[in-house]
């Protein structure tokens, strides 16, 4: 399915990115931290398989868009949060996968 960002624009309708990430990572049942999730474009490509997803981004507008675009079937598993990874604290390891999405 082509991902239409807005009228007249399609990003990677060939789904090359989807094939690449699923070839590298098996998301099934994993707890995933996505850093730099933006508007959730990449999140929507693996969220259906993960056990949980925390997507973080510095930009509040992008996070609002990501939340609004999330399919209802993923609402219980996915959380989006405005946050800076350099300021976040993780008292205990809680994730199986971390994704740096165009953002290191």
């Amino acid at each position: 399915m082509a991902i239409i960002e807005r009228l007249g624009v399609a990003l990677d309708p060939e789904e090359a990115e989807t094939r690449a990430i699923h070839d590298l990572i098996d998301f099934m049942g994993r707890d995933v931290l996505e850093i730099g999730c933006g508007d959730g474009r990449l999140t929507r490509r693996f969220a259906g398989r993960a056990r949980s997803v925390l997507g973080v981004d510095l930009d509040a507008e992008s996070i609002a868009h990501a939340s609004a675009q999330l399919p209802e079937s993923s609402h219980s598993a996915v959380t989006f949060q405005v946050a800076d990874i350099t300021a976040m604290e993780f008292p205990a390891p809680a994730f199986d996968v971390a994704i740096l999405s165009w953002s290191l």
Partner: protein
Amino acid sequence: MRALRNIHSALRPGGLLLDIHPEPKHPWLVAQVDAQAILVGQLDESFRIGTVRFARAALQRGVDDGLFIFERETTFIFTYHFADVDAWLDHMAGHWASAGVPADMAERASNLLATGAGELRIPREIHAARLRKPKG
């Protein structure tokens, strides 16, 4: 490095880090007209190229420091499709402001699209790497 250290803290032992970023290159705008691909011009990605090189160096330091073990990498082509020049320019302004667009590129693209049925594309080479947090 602070980001990498926090990610290391967040991951369980043996957990995976997937790093995805564009290759440090200046991408081409392509007019796809009547099944023919015509190069319109190159975007100036100098700013992004600098940040990618910085990020790669940081990731390498993370490997050298033992935070992560490199496992696999791949590249793929991520293609942006634009129905017309306005859609392309809107996207550049709203989502890709770090890239420079040469002054005559929009006019060239518009002239090419006027010659037949087609669209604009930007095929972008993307690098993806999988690293693992050591179990020990």
